């Protein structure tokens, strides 16, 4: 697919990452997974994703640090980021949005279908290849 939309999931919980990946792949996106903050940053540069989902609680660099670095780097500054976390506290939400996250989603309230909708909001509707 030429217009392949690539999504990077920065997520250390493999069960959560796999779950969202299954849905996004079914919707026609290609998905790569970074298991910690450092790996996520490296993949943001190397894989040039169109879109990033970012967990906050990560080994090593936490999500906010990752977001700051993504924003500081000219190569990754333009990539839309949605925070996807277990923590819904208003102060975290505010901090994330201030750092430039497009949305702030709480995992427990975000089904894979709702996640897929959030990608659509950010990148435009997907037209699935006819099978």
């Amino acid at each position: 697919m030429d217009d392949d939309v690539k999504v990077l999931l920065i997520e250390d919980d493999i069960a959560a990452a796999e779950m969202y990946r299954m849905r996004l792949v079914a919707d026609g996106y290609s998905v790569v997974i970074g298991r910690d903050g450092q790996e996520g940053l490296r993949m943001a540069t190397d894989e040039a994703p169109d879109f990033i989902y970012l967990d906050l609680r990560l080994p090593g660099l936490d999500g906010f640090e990752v977001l700051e670095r993504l924003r500081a780097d000219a190569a990754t500054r333009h990539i839309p980021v949605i925070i996807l976390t277990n923590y819904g506290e208003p102060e975290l939400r505010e901090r994330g949005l201030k750092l430039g996250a497009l949305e702030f989603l709480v995992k427990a309230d975000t089904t894979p279908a709702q996640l897929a909708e959030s990608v659509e909001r950010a990148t435009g509707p997907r037209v699935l290849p006819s099978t």
Partner: protein
Amino acid sequence: MERAADELRSTPDLEPVSRRPVNRPSAAAGFKIQAPSNLPNRARGTRVVEPANGEGAGFYTQAARLAAQVGPAAAPPRDATIYLVQSGAVSRIATTSRGDAESGGSGAIADHPHVRQAVAGDAIVIDRSRGRAGRSLAAAVAVIPVHTDGVVVGALEVEGDGDDFDERHVGQLVTLANLIGAGLGHDATVSDLTEEAERSRNLEKMKSEFLNIAAHELRSPLGIIRGYASLLSEVALSAEEREVALERIGEKSEEMARLISDMLETARLETMGLDLAVAPVDLEDVIGDAVAAMRPLLGADHAFDLQATGGPIAVVADRRRLTTMLTNLLDNAIKYSPRGGTIEIRVGCDEGVATIMVRDHGIGISAEQVPFLFTRFGRLVTPETSHIRGTGLGLYLARETARLHGGDIVARSQAGQGSTFTITLPVELG
């Protein structure tokens, strides 16, 4: 005192009140009262205002002030009074009236129906019905009997407008009433009172922090279960993906079940202690069960290295709880070695004591922090561990379980060097 109580019993009960047996102080309440060697004469014979601990009436005033603070924080100030009761008469040994402390005064017990009832029945009396004349708000009254050397010598009464006293408040009042009784019997001082107040505040804070952590810990596996369930119903998954989805749902349900069981065990331990269902078991079987139960969580990066003694090790134990204790330690070892590694399990038995050592090569903690590992609700959150899940109950419960079996768990650790937990358990001889 017994005779006075008998006389009082013949008078009719007040309605409506709730009555329940007095909670005796326990180690779980955080304060141990030693039985005084002799009952102070003053408490028995005269209308005493001096505590036997030699601290003067200030002790009671302080106790009354602390009691007046028990209740919903936002409620208007309460009145707290400490009474001594003898032969149908009450003497007021300390009162705080809307925050101002006074002492002295006496009267007939008939004028203090709640106190009468608490003393006669040796029962906690809570009256939620009592709207006092001239006051628009509903009032609640709580009266807790005060014991010295096992005998009811008086009562602590707390009364507030627009208040209610729930289980927790009553528990705090019982602790204070026990301290007042101990003050009469030499054993409690003002610093015990302030320590108790401080301890109770800290525990409240830890509990609300814990609730917050627990909610997050339950929310995370629940989110995964819901997510995979929705995938199964909404998306055409491959056979392999379906398998993964079902496996994840199973794993996360187990995780939730373990969390909930830890919480229930902790609550049970706090309120009534655990009843062990003990029977003779082979410790090696229990270890085998725990290792088998945890193996699916190992993933590619971790391995167990189990070296057992080969022979049966006979212990008398609650098999289920002992297995849970071991799975908690193994789970801990996996969680805190995020980069993987071998988890060594060594079993030994020597001179009537069985030892099980669980060693990981994970992140460890500094030696100074080791004592905090086993605190209830006390999860150590450092930059290295902030992404690791946990309620802070697992190790607490594990050590309590070992101790209930007459054994113990000790930890050794160094930051960056991994941790070693050593369980000791008495072996059934014969």
